[in-house]
């Protein structure tokens, strides 16, 4: 929209830490209370390990969450934090981020919190491109309420509320986010700390809304939901690791490759295709059709699941334009004087 915006990086306006930071600086004094074995622990550890790397003043980082197991996250980080109400974190964070450019604002949410009750706030935050980093812990189940199916659960899922199998066709969170004009869309997985950290880094650096889906195991109510992506036996065949600028392949020794098929993308045997036909990943493609096509690769069985950054394009952020408008409107006159002028505007008269 303007020079100023383009020139800014995600951190320009945020105060920096004055000294070195370590993971332990980001641990709060609250006892962590997820079930033993829950994937949330790994994500927390990765976050605590990653935050020092950001180098921001700790007090200028704020985590806002909704309700759910995942939404307990802010309690365990020694930053500012708000554990709000179910589904509303993106809205609350929008108010915070839009009025405080000096903060790094993160939203932590679950598949129920973000996609069920909070779906509307999520898609609106994404289209607005508010400067928020939204982490959706997708365990494909409602954990906190003890195991009902969620909007990402597979059709036919047997849960307490669906004894004959769930009926609703699931969302593909990345497709939804891309359809909602998201400027940054990525996916990662609780079990791969290095990858998780790399995606957090990319999200943090993105100026605007960053949407990150994190596959997270709920070992109590949906254990093994992502095993096909974790199991050393199957994962190489199932996971597609996206790297900006590299041809997209998967499988042992890149046995499979992503190529155009039909009107979208598909997977073919590398040996059988012209190397020039292998898609070279470019997260900056403006046309959202590319990232969308990538998001459609996985089947319902999770085979061919891309992880990494699918889309990362520049678009003016909501908060930066709002700030610009405020700056444009600002005057140097004392506010008191301006107020007197305002009240006296229009037709006035004097009674003596």
């Amino acid at each position: 929209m303007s020079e100023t915006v383009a020139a800014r990086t995600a951190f320009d306006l945020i105060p920096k830490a004055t000294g070195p930071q370590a993971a332990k600086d980001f641990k709060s004094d609250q006892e962590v209370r997820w079930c033993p074995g829950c994937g949330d622990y790994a994500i927390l550890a990765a976050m605590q390990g990653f935050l020092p790397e950001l180098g921001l003043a700790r007090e200028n980082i704020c985590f806002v969450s909704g309700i759910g197991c995942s939404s307990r996250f802010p309690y365990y980080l020694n930053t500012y934090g708000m554990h709000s109400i179910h589904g509303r974190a993106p809205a609350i964070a929008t108010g915070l981020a839009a009025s405080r450019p000096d903060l790094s604002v993160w939203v932590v949410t679950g598949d129920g919190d973000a996609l069920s009750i909070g779906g509307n706030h999520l898609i609106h935050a994404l289209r607005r491109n508010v400067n928020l980093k939204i982490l959706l812990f997708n365990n494909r189940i409602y954990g906190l309420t003890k195991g009902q199916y969620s909007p990402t659960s597979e059709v036919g899922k047997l849960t307490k509320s669906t004894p004959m199998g769930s009926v609703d066709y699931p969302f593909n969170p990345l497709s939804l986010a891309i359809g909602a004009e998201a400027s940054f869309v990525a996916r990662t997985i609780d079990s791969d700390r290095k990858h998780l950290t790399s995606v957090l880094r990319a999200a943090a650096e993105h100026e605007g809304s960053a949407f990150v889906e994190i596959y997270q195991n709920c070992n109590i109510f949906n254990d093994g939901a992502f095993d096909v992506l974790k199991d050393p036996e199957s994962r190489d065949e199932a996971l597609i690791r996206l790297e900006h600028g590299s041809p997209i392949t998967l499988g042992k020794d890149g046995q499979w490759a992503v190529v155009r098929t039909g009107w979208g993308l598909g997977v073919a045997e590398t040996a059988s295709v012209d190397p020039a036909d292998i898609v070279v990943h470019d997260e900056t493609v403006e046309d959202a059709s590319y990232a969308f096509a990538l998001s459609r690769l996985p089947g319902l069985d999770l085979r061919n699941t891309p992880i990494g950054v699918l889309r990362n394009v520049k678009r003016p952020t909501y908060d930066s334009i709002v700030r610009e408008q405020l700056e444009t409107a600002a005057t140097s006159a004392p506010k008191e004087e301006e107020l007197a002028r305002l009240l006296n505007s229009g037709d006035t008269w004097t009674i003596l």
Partner: protein
Amino acid sequence: MSDVSSPEAKPIRQLDHVVIRFAGDSGDGMQLTGDRFTSETAQLGNDLSTLPNFPAEIRAPAGTLPGVSSFQLHFADHDILTPGDAPDVLVAMNPAALKANVGDLPGGATVIVNVDEFNKRAMAKVGYATSPFEDDSLSGFTVHQVPLTSMTVESLAEYEVPKRDAVRAKNMFALGLISWLYSRPVESTIAFIERKFAARPEIATANVAAIKAGWAYGETTEGFAVRYEVKPATLPAGNYRNITGNTALAYGIVAAGVRSELPVFLGAYPITPASDILHELSRHKKFGVTTFQAEDEIAAVGAAIGASYGGALGVTSTSGPGVALKSEAISLAVALELPLVVVDVQRAGPSTGLPTKTEQADLNIALFGRHGEAPVAVVAASSPSDCFHAALEACRIAVQYRTPVILLSDGYLANGSEPWKLPEIDELPDLRVAFADGPNHTLDNGEEVFWPYKRDPQTLARPWAVPGTAGLEHRIGGLEKRDGTGDISYDPANHDLMVRTRAARIEAIEVPDLEVEDPTGDARVLALGWGSTYGPIGAACRKLRAAGQSIAQAHLRHLSPMPANLGKVLASYDKVIVPEMNLGQLSTVLRARFLVDVIGYQQVRGLPFTSTELESVFEEVVKNV
């Protein structure tokens, strides 16, 4: 009306007050006409009060009853309180406007009709089988049949305006005529027109010419034998402007931002009749006011909470349906103990109800409309200009006590207007509060720590510790928390303590005592109200007193907490009558709290009370005491 003849060409009669109603099709520009006449009247120094009334449709089909739009203005040579019970003069631009409004006219009223529009088809459309001028349906009134349309078109013949635009200028012709009739100067309106149509000078010229032609018509026609004059009112000295409730409320919020030195953040979703607050505030970015048009009411209040958390004055404005949707989030703000102002411009419910009509039936939801024990402060505005002060007061409570405050206005206040004596900025309350900036508690081991829920012993408010403050990092949320530390707590005794503390916090808010107006000092009946009934109740009391009866009046600005002396006030009258535009919501609260058998009087018609109606109700009570 008092009559005083004057010895001019056309005699001028002095009146002490006039109620005039302009009525026409939605497209006839009646709101603008009314606004301009109001402004002229204000300039003259009359006291005044206005009541616009528009259809729910954007543009209902032309010439139909639901398409009628009207604007009523009451002006007087003395201080008045309402837009008038019934018009002395009706200006009706078409048959629909006549039909829709004639029922409100008292005998002897003057009716000025645009006779050009009374063709068969137009009359049939609204059910006039015969012309109302030919039967005796208007026999009790003084009727002036003025060919407004054709005379306007004629008077613009010399200008090169398309017929359509000429026809549209007929409201300005009418304004010119009425301005002449009531001796109002039209200069300011001419200036206004020239400003407004600066980009289209031919339209400006035509409208100005129409005004002048209307004025000239008054001077020359024989139809109008007398002119009237209403002397300026002797209002307190000062600078005045005319202001609607929504504008005043928005200004109050701007002023609160200035006086608290906090950025204002408004999260809002458009809804009638609250949208204009969003519109107005979006124009004041120079004050650091951010407006966020949210995807819905929940996001609107959510964003306001987020902004408050970040150290802004978080405000959200809506009407009843929006308040319902915000309930859960307001409850969060109760738990978070953060400042939040929720403006509810009430309209007639339930559900979608009558969106453009007024009502005061949201007191219940304001006081009781949240799950769990979730007390908030509730403040109500009593007149259009009072919306400014009520908004300041709501903001004062919100920031000083770190609590959600619901500010009740209504459709009548929102769109109605009255002269407002402009306050001096430095006399406005000082709303500055300090953010927390360091530890506030010493542990047994001597360590200095920050406790986010350690309270100010007097206000019971917790510190406002905004992100970005080093050393104060903390987590808050909607789960129950330990008093002091703010840590999540499932302890039964702590929960009981917190529930009671949240209630005590609201009761601890300092609010001024209720003032009672009882000029004779011997009243045995108190008329008690809240909100926009202030005008009609006051006017009724005045009438009653003028007729030699005694009655006391008091009006509640604070519904939660209530003034400390309220119980005593109630106990000192034999009877307390409480008029409300609902089914007795304040009555219920008073009865429960003070066990006083207050008499409720209710009408729920989407319209304000008339003072006449209340006068007779009060008289009945006074007589039987």
